[in-house]
């Protein structure tokens, strides 16, 4: 492909651009169109998968017990695939295109391939959904062998993964073009760096998925006689858990982006934030071990090294982001004039802006509920009292729903005016949406973790064990927890509905942004956006007492909760 390197500002022949009236960035029209379609399809899968999730939660509410067993397991499988895989990955592809072509001010590489990627992803996702809804593939999202799904279930996932891989390579290609054409000076922005982290982990993830899903597909059509169940798990979780690290990287990049766009926040130090992302690339992949801690055939040494990400070095990365993002916000707010006391900067933050409130709730739910529970559950011995109980979905609803999904929702309130160039409709609903959704998700996570601590199994249709030859009564508190979980799920579903309503209506029926409305209601407030662009650089050694208090509270909660669980463990039967 011939690139006109002599005149980089004109860009590649055939690429067309507009200039964003709010940021001054050059926007490649192909990138913009692809961001739109990927984001719209993502929201469709969120709506469908979220609805399935509500059905599941209502079935697990003992007093309601909505669905029969076969439908429960069918919709639970579909729920996992649609939200854990399709919603987040479609949205992440949109984020990758945004973090490359838009932020780096250049054209998207190979737009035809990017469209092919999109088509493959849609075909794969629809195929997998058809397989599940036909009823022959209720194998759960994890599809552990020797339980077998219909061949087109695996095929759908494989086609989807191929599409994703092509999209990731369009992202890498865009980075190369931006560098070649000199569309930016020096190093890539931190947000793009975070997106690169996500993309690198995505390649590893998809490779693991191909290594295990292709033989499993061949097994399902009879070409391979046996898949070892333990080997399947080791490699499948190389995809299953590593794909969650794509989410973490993308979501942390969004945290930085929203803090920058709304508050003008600069990272306290580029070096530290980038090192933290690098630690994700180097260590997060070891997390397959989190799913194998009570498995036969895996040694303690292997478990300890891998489950701790070497020496908790990926956890260190997350803890760094958990300090540096609030720190950057505090520094920016103090610079913006909110300098009284310890917490004026936080009190007077734009809490009525759903992009900001969603981001803050995402940070808090991810850190306090998701992060701490993840480390505890990923401790070799502590996993004994948690494995496959509801504690597990409690944990990952805090990370993937409270963390990733809420962050994606938050950034949507910026993408709609900036990329779709539409006014956000129903502003009051939008303003409340992150709170309603966040409260629901926090409830789901806490109540499921509570029920899990009391031993309630995950992926289980009836905690009353009807029709069982021998029975068991969980404590009454466990039933209470599952009732509260159902109520929290209704709250989260309402929050999800509010999001879909606001975003879909704004995108399809919203008023177009005009120069007047942009001047009256800028998406990026003057304190953020362009105002601080000229003074970019690492934050100069500010005093950040608020952040010190916040991370201290986090740390104390972490240490206490960690050792409380060791106490629980010490009370069960001795095993060796």
């Amino acid at each position, binding site marked *: 492909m011939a690139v006109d390197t002599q005149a980089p500002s004109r860009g590649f022949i055939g690429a067309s651009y507009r200039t964003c009236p709010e940021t001054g960035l050059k926007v490649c029209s192909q990138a913009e169109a692809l961001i739109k379609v990927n984001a719209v399809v993502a929201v469709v899968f969120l709506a469908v998968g979220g609805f399935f999730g509500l059905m599941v939660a209502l079935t697990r509410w003992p007093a309601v017990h909505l669905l029969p067993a076969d439908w429960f397991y069918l919709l639970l499988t579909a729920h996992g695939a649609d939200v854990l895989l399709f919603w987040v990955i479609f949205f992440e592809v949109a984020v990758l295109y945004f973090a490359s072509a838009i932020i780096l001010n250049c054209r998207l590489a190979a737009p035809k391939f990017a469209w092919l990627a999109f088509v493959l992803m849609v075909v794969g996702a629809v195929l997998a959904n058809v397989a599940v809804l036909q009823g022959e593939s209720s194998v759960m999202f994890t599809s552990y062998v020797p339980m077998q799904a219909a061949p087109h279930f695996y095929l759908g996932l494989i086609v989807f993964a191929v599409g994703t891989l092509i999209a990731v390579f369009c992202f890498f290609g865009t980075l190369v073009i931006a560098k070649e054409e000199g569309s930016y000076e020096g190093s890539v922005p931190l947000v793009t760096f975070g997106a690169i982290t996500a993309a690198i982990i995505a390649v590893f993830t998809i490779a693991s998925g191909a290594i295990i899903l292709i033989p499993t597909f061949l097994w399902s059509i009879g070409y391979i006689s046996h898949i070892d169940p333990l080997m399947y798990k080791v490699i499948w979780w190389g995809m299953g858990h590593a794909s969650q690290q794509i989410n973490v990287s993308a979501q942390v990049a969004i945290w930085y982006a929203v803090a920058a766009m709304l508050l003008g926040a600069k990272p306290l130090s580029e070096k530290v934030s980038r090192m933290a992302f690098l630690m994700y690339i180097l260590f997060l992949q070891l997390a397959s071990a989190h799913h194998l801690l009570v498995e036969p055939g895996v040694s303690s040494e292997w478990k300890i090294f891998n489950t701790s990400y070497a020496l908790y070095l990926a956890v260190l990365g997350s803890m760094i982001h958990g300090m540096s993002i609030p720190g950057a916000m505090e520094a920016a707010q103090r610079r913006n004039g909110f300098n009284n006391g310890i917490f004026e900067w936080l009190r007077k933050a734009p809490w009525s802006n759903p992009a900001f409130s969603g981001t803050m709730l995402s940070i808090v739910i991810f850190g306090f509920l998701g992060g701490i529970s993840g480390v505890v559950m990923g401790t070799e011995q502590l996993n004994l009292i948690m494995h496959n109980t509801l504690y597990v979905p409690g944990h990952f609803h805090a990370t993937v729903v409270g963390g990733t999904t809420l962050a994606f929702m938050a950034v949507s309130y910026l993408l709609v005016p900036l990329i779709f160039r539409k006014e956000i409709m129903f502003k009051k609903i939008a303003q409340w949406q992150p709170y309603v959704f966040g409260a629901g998700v926090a409830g789901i996570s806490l109540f499921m973790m509570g029920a899990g601590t009391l031993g309630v*199994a995950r992926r289980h249709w009836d905690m009353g064990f009807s029709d069982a030859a021998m029975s068991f009564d969980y404590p009454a508190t466990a039933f209470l927890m599952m009732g509260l979980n159902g109520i929290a799920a209704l709250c989260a579903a309402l929050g999800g509905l509010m999001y879909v309503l606001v975003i879909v209506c704004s995108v399809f029926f919203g008023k177009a942004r005009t120069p007047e409305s942009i001047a009256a209601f800028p998406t990026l407030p003057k304190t953020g956006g362009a105002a601080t662009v000229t003074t970019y650089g690492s934050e100069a050694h500010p005093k950040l007492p608020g952040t010190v208090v916040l991370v201290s509270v986090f740390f104390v909660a972490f240490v206490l909760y960690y050792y409380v669980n060791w106490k629980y463990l010490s009370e069960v039967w001795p095993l060796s």
Partner: protein
Amino acid sequence: MAIFPPQNRLWWKEPLSGIEITWIGVAFVWGLVMFGTMVGWHFVGKQNLSNETYRINPNAFGEKVEAMVERYQVREEGDTGIPVVHPAPGTDIYMLGRLWEWYPVLELEKDQKYRLHLSSMDWQHGFSLQPQNINLQVHPGYEMVLTITPDKSGEYAVVCNEFCGIGHHTMVGKIHVIDNK
């Protein structure tokens, strides 16, 4: 701003602020402490999984289970027809998972050691001992061996907590722990 390239092109030479250095130090040391706790529990803790596992043909495992049932059966569990075995303390005891039961019912003596062998005849199952809340994964083709010492008497349920098909919720087994006579 994190959405623009660093203005200072030599950003990696900028000094770190005190709060960052302190937090990185605290977080790193905490990571070492957690790592050390896991390793240390193998020396001081009483709840550690053994690494003893064998590959086994499901039918061969089934035969071992039947041999134990024949030798040690004492009665049937209620009207379920499922045998209850009371193996001698200190011996090897077996429990197998299959669609959709845990077999057989074990009767153990309090504060005695047993070598528990677990495996599956078909799909994966989850051995979830309630209300202790001890959870182990059971694979077909792998025989996991661990030494257990029930230290409280009572009636315990073994719930299956790995999804194993439509009858998954009916898969409940039993372990009785009785006081020594």
